[in-house]
C-alpha cells in the first residue's frame, strides 16, 4: 500500500485565520484525484502539510502509511510540484536536479532521464533564472519524477503551460495513473480535470465539501464546471 495519500481531520490556523478545518480525504492508486476549490479553500496548505513543510494543529497526513518527515529518501516515495519558482536563479536546471538526486542517493543518470522525459534537455544547462513559467513547470515535473515515486502531488500543474504543454501534461497524468501511481492534482481549471481525473475532491473553507468519482459527479451536476459552481457557492470568500 505505497501508492496512497491519506489526509484525516487536519486543522490549522494562521493567527486568527482558519486555513484547515477538518480536511479529510484519500487519494488512491491508479487514478488521478482532482483537488478542487476556490482560493483560500486550503488546497495549498493541505499539500504543504502533507510534505511536512507546515505543521498541522491537529490531524494526520500520511503518504503510503507514514508521515512524510519519517520517510527515508522521500522523493522516491512522493514526488511533488508545489512552487515551480522555487529555484536559485544562478543555478542551471540540470544542477538543480543534480543536487536533488544527490539528496536521495540517486545516480546522475536519472537526472538526464527525467530531463529527456520532460523535454527539458535542450535548456537544461541554462540558468534557471531565465526560464519561462512553462519551463519552470516542466523542471518541477522533472524534479517530482526524479525518484520514480508511487505517489505524485502536483499543485496547479497546468499554470503557465502553452496548449501543446497542456496536452502533454494531460497525457503524462493519465499515463502516470495508468502505471498504478496515486496522482493528486490541484487545479481550478475544471475542463482539464474533466478529461483526466477519475476522482474529484471539492474543498471549501478548509474542509471537503464533496468527494466522488468524476462519473458520479458529472451524472449529478451535468459537468464538473457546474458541480464546481454549485458546490463552492458561498464558500468562495477570499480571506
Amino acid at each position: 500500500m505505497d501508492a496512497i495519500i491519506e489526509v484525516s481531520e487536519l486543522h490549522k490556523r494562521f493567527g486568527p485565520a482558519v486555513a484547515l478545518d477538518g480536511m479529510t480525504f484519500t487519494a488512491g492508486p491508479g487514478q488521478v484525484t482532482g483537488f478542487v476549490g476556490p482560493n483560500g479553500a486550503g488546497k495549498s496548505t493541505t499539500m504543504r502539510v502533507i510534505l511536512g513543510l507546515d505543521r498541522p494543529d491537529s490531524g494526520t497526513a500520511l503518504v503510503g502509511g507514514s508521515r512524510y518527515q519519517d520517510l527515508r529518501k522521500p522523493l522516491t516515495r512522493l514526488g511533488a510540484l508545489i512552487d515551480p519558482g522555487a529555484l536559485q536563479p544562478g543555478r542551471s536546471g540540470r544542477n538543480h536536479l543534480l543536487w536533488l538526486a544527490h539528496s536521495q542517493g540517486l545516480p546522475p543518470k536519472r537526472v538526464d532521464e527525467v530531463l529527456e522525459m520532460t523535454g527539458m534537455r535542450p535548456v537544461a544547462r541554462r540558468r534557471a533564472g531565465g526560464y519561462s513559467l512553462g519551463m519552470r513547470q516542466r523542471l518541477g515535473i522533472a524534479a517530482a519524477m526524479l525518484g520514480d515515486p508511487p505517489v505524485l502531488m502536483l499543485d496547479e500543474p497546468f499554470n503557465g503551460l502553452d496548449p501543446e504543454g497542456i496536452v502533454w501534461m494531460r497525457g503524462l497524468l493519465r499515463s502516470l495513473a495508468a502505471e498504478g501511481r496515486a496522482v493528486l492534482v490541484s487545479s481550478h481549471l475544471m475542463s482539464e480535470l474533466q478529461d483526466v481525473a477519475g476522482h474529484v475532491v471539492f474543498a471549501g473553507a478548509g474542509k471537503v465539501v464533496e468527494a466522488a468519482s468524476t462519473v458520479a459527479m458529472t451524472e449529478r451536476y451535468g459537468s464538473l464546471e457546474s458541480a464546481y459552481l454549485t458546490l463552492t457557492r458561498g464558500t468562495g470568500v477570499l480571506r
Partner: protein
Amino acid sequence: MIRAEWTKFRSVRAWVAGIVVAFAAILGLGVAGAYGISQDCMGRICPAPPTGPGGEAVRDKFSYVHQTLDGDGELTAHLAGFTGIITYPPPNHDAIVAGLVPWAKAGLMIKDGTKVGAAYAAVMMTGHNGVRMQNNFTEDRAGPSAASWLRISRQGDKIIGYASSDGAAWTPIETVVLKNIHKSVNIGFFVTSPSDITNEASPRGGTIVQARFTQATAVFDRIDRTGAWSLTKVGDTGEQTDWQKYHTPDGYTESNGRLTVTGSGDIAPAGNEGGPTIDFALTGVIVALIAVIIVGALYITGEFRRGLIRTTYAAMPARGRVLAAKAAVLGAVTFVPALLATAIAVPVASRVLRSHHVTLLPAAVGTQVRVIVGAALLLSLAAIFAYALGAALKRGVIAIALAVVLVVLPYLLATTSLLPPGAGRWLLRLTPAAGFAFQQVLPAYHQISLPYTPSDGYYPLGPWAGLGVLAAWAAALLGLAILRARRSDA
C-alpha cells in the same frame, strides 16, 4: 491568498519592527550609556571646567605680571629673549631639552580682572607661529612674523595690538572689542607654554596621547610704563612638576627695568580632554543605523524578489517617480522617529549625567540642535542610501553588505585608529561615512597643537558638508537606480 497576505503583513511588520528597534536603541543605549559614565577627581566631584566669555570651556593658566589700568592707556615693550624647555620629548624620552613648543606664548595682555575665564586681549610672540593677537580664547589673528616690539592699547572697550621690528615703525594687527569690560582692568606681561603633545597608535587600537610638561621664559625690556608690578599665577592649582619645584618655578624677576617672566599652561579653548560632550548620548545611533539600513534594503528588495515590482510598475508606469517616491517615504519614516528619539535622548542623558555630578563640556544650543537633527538626518540618509543601493544592484544581500561596509566600516577604521590618521581623514571625506561629521561638538582651532584625529572626535568635514557627502552618495545611487529601472525590464 491567506498565506500571501500573511507574508506581506509579516514583512511590513518586520520593517516597522526595524524602525522601533532604531528608536529604542537611540533612547535606551543613549540613556543607559549615560548611567554608565562616572567621573571622579581623586575621589571627589570634579570641578566644572572654567568657561570663557563665549560660554565655551577654556584653559586659562599663565603667569601674569600686571598693574591696574584705569580707563584708556597703553603698554609698549621690547621682547629681549624667549626661551623654554620641553621635558623628555621623543624619540628618546630621556632628556629635558631647551626649546619652545609651537604655541608657547609671551607678550602683553589686557584682562578684565585676574579671574580664570575673564575677558582678555593680548598681543604676543609665539614659539613657531610668529606674532599673534588673540582675545577671548577662541579668536586669533596673525601679525608680522619678525617683530620683537609689542604694544597694546585701550580706548574704551576697544583694544588695539601693534607690532614693530624696530620700535619706531608700528603695524597695527587688529582692533578687538571686549564688550562690557570694567573701567579698571589689568594690563601687563604674560608667559605660558602648553604641553608638548604627540599621539601614537596603541597595539590595542586607539591612540595613546602623550602630553609632556613644558615651560617658557621671556625677557621684556624698554618698558614704557612705570610703577610697581605684581604677579598672579592665573589658573594655578598649586600642583608643581619637579622641574618647577627644584629648577625654575613659574614667576618673575625684575632688575634694571628688565622683567623676566616664566610660565606654563595655556590660554585657549578646551578640547575634549575636559570631559564628555553631548555626543556620548549618541551611543545607540550605530545600532539604529544598522536597523534602518536593513529596513531600507528590505524596502526595495522585497519588491524585486517576488515580482511585486511588476505590479507596482503596472500600477504606476513612471518608474523614476515610483523609485523617488519610495525613497521619500523611506526618508520620512526613518527621519521622524529618529528625530524624536535623539531629541529625547540628548537632554535626558545630559540630565542623568548632571545628577551623577559628571561635568559635560558646555555646548551652545545651536550645537545641540545640530547634533540632534544631524543624527536623524544621518539615519534617514543612510536608509535611503541602502535602499538606492538595493534598487541599483537588485541584489539585496550584496546591497546591504555594501551599505554597511561603506557607511560603518570607514567610520570604524578612522575612529579606532586602525588606520593612520591621514588615511582615516580621507575616508571620512570621501565615503558615505562622512555623514558622521555632525557628531563633532567641539570645534577644532588652528591655534592649538592637538592632533585633532577622527578618533578624538574631530572630523575633516563640517557637519553639513559631511551629511552632504552622504546625501550625494544616496542621490547618485538613486539616479543610477532610476536609470536602470527605465532602461531594463522589470
